[in-house]
């Protein structure tokens, strides 16, 4: 119990420190009124707008107001859209979630078979080619690859739409693209673009896992028992090499959701990343702050849960903390 409280306090500390850093950092960028107001406005109107937005107050007063609101679950109202920042972000969250899930799915579907093949034949031509190609996935900039996808598949070949989300279907009050054929065709390129880096990561993890597991005694024993090679790979090996892959993908999922910014910008995908970029351009402070705070909350929560699971799985962790 002491361990849980300890971790919880640490998490809250991180959130508090980040709140200060984020707020002060965003405050330092510039004056939002310069970006929002029409140049035709005169001084009187500019001053009225500054007061209306509460920007005339000193930094500490604005910060206290923000903290007070945050404790009640209100992270401020967007200057640009006059809507609660949290609502704006949550409204766009499904689009990003859908994109991130599709990307992770692609990474697993493509990455694991390729990784296993490369692991089984580390010195073969196929294995080496897979590893060489996976370096491209790591090193090519997402923005450039995204543009190339659009140029090839949308502009030159005309197979897939270039940008946007396409038709959506409303399920439980949320719009989803993956339920319509048109939506799926819109989803494919951005998801592939986002999946590229993760695919390379999965290939590497799967390859390393395969190479490690393949030398284990139980694999030798399974083979000695006369089981078919397919069964050895699919049942005995795959199950064991998946552990590190799942762990890493779980942690990576958070970053895919939070930082799909580039892909969303290139493909005009109406998710939270695109919202973040336009909020930075217009200095829509409440949205930037709310976005970063929600991201911090997401990561702190993931880490907290992981810590708890470790403690449950491994009694040594608990004992060390108690000592």
């Amino acid at each position, binding site marked *: 119990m002491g361990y849980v409280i300890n971790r919880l306090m640490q998490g809250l500390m991180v959130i508090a420190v980040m709140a200060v850093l984020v707020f002060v950092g965003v405050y330092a*960028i*510039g*004056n*939002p*009124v*310069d*970006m*929002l*107001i*029409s*140049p*035709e*406005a*005169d*001084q*009187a*109107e*500019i001053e*009225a*707008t500054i007061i*209306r*937005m509460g920007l005339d107050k000193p930094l500490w007063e604005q910060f206290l107001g923000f903290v007070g609101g945050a404790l009640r679950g209100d992270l401020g*109202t967007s*200057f*640009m*859209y*006059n*809507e609660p920042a949290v609502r*704006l972000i949550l*409204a*766009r969250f499904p689009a990003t979630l859908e994109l991130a899930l599709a990307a992770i799915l692609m990474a697993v579907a493509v990455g694991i078979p390729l990784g296993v093949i490369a692991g089984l034949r580390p010195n073969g031509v196929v294995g080496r080619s897979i590893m060489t190609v996976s370096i491209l996935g790591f090193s090519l900039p997402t923005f450039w690859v995204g*543009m190339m996808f*659009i*140029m090839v598949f*949308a*502009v030159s070949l*005309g197979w897939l*739409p*270039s*940008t*946007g*989300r396409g038709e959506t279907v409303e399920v439980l009050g949320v*719009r989803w693209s993956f339920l319509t054929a048109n939506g799926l065709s819109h989803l494919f390129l951005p998801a592939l673009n986002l999946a590229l880096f993760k695919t390379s990561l999965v290939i590497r993890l799967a390859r390393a896992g395969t190479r490690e597991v393949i030398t284990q005694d139980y694999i030798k024993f399974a083979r000695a028992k006369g089981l078919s090679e397919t069964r050895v790979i699919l049942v005995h090996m795959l199950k064991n090499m998946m552990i590190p892959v799942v762990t890493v993908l779980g942690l990576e999922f958070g970053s895919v959701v939070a930082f799909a910014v580039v892909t969303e*910008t*290139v*493909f*005009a995908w*109406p*998710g939270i990343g*695109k*919202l973040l*970029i*336009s909020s930075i*351009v*217009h*200095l829509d402070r409440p949205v930037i702050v709310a976005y970063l705070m929600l991201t911090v909350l997401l990561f702190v929560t993931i880490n907290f849960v992981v810590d708890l699971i470790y403690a449950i799985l491994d009694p040594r962790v608990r004992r060390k903390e108690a000592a």
Partner: protein
Amino acid sequence: MRNLLIGTTALMMGLAAGAAHAADLKVGLSAEPSALDPHYHNLVPNNAMAKHAFNTLVEQDANQRLGAGLATSWKALDDTTWEFKLRPGVKFHDGTPFTAKDVVFSICRVPKVPNSPSAFTIYMKSIESMETPDDMTVVMKTATPYPLLPTDISTIQIVAANTGTLNGPLVFKKDGCTGVESYPSTEDFNSGKAMNGTGPFKFKEFVKGDRTVMVKNPDYWGEKAAWDTVTFRPIAADGPRVAALLAGDVDFIENPPSQDLPRLKGDKKVHVVDGLSNRVIYVAINSGSAVHPGLKGVDKNPLADPKVRKALSLAIDRKAIAAKIMNGQAEPAGQTISPGLFGHNPDLKPDAFDAKEAQKLLAEAGYPKGFEVTLGTPNDRYMNDEKVAQAIAQFWTRVGVKTNVDATTASVFFSRRGKQEFAAFLAGWGAGTGEASSPLKSLVACRNKEKGYGTTNYTDYCNAAMDATLDQALATIDDAKREKLLQTAMAQVAADTGIIPIHFEKTPWAMKANLTYVPRVDQQTMAQYIRPAK
């Protein structure tokens, strides 16, 4: 049962075919409106979007000249009284007839929009009182002679009075109208509930960040739109927006980047139009302060000397900038208002490039060895802004004024400019009113909060003679006389190089080869003016 199924299928196929034949248009926008509420945010994307569903009493044409809108005519009864005759037979989208009450309601709502980031109050605060002698007449009074009232009124969209709740006779009062219980909220417009206008399109759908859909208003009072359905999609990144056009996902895009224009113009499937905008790109130079940290190698401010300012202007090769850096998407400027707009002075030509004369003037002013200056510029606000600043820096350095460029993102640039951190800076000005008093008042008039002068004059330039002419112009109702006065004021600024105009930006639009668009000075994209090519 089976017959029914076949029948339904046939019907659906028929519908699908019908939909394919209907005239649909998809437009790629470079910026999304922040709301559909026409009184919420005075910003180009918002104003352009509002004009699809709403109208104004006085409308600005492609050259921002005023013309009849929901008012068929207007005139000044005396220096402070304006009468607007309304257009009879106009109906709102819900069928309600348009009357003077809607005009009063709309103007009353302007100061009542909560949390507006850029309010339209600047366009109605000159109105002292408003009366409606009959349903088709509105009479407005101003405190002092104010010739720009029709121009100001041309920015306020008319919404239906039935979108709010009235609780008595609606009476305009300067400090808050009476007779209104509640106005529609910004959210009511975004959801479509209050999207009851008189415009050529009706609201269908608004999904923030993804699309705005409008359908044709078949009962529109003016020229009807050529499209049954228009879908606007925000594609902020330049490359993907061009790609969306080339891939056929959209039919029409605004603001294709200038470096893609040669390619687009060479493509047979694409039609590109461009036209001069109301935006001037200028360099402002600090002439007001005695010393400035942005200047080095001098113990006083050399920019206070008109000769030095003239030298800096002569040192710039505007033609080379327009041709090489702007790819022809600009026209050299000798004043701050574009040709064709009200108050442009045809006698003021752009300063011709003359490095020798510039050096001579610098020597005469006592700076034969020049000095050092920092030129501030945004790097993501205007077309090729940083590259233009770099070019100017090199031209200045060539005549002996060593120039460093300090380029930052727009939000940082504007904040620093507001603190007067730059001795010289490059920026742009779009004349929102489409006439010369806009740049004169904001950019070069002496800073004066009471008069609303010099709001963007961050260089403390002050020319009392010009201010006097401007005062006089802004109190002259007669259009011809006012235009003369504005031209004189323009010449007075040019005479002592109060500001260095660089060029007027041209605005491009790209579309499928079978479409046309008349370029608009105000840079707005409006689907009712996108037409099939003949």
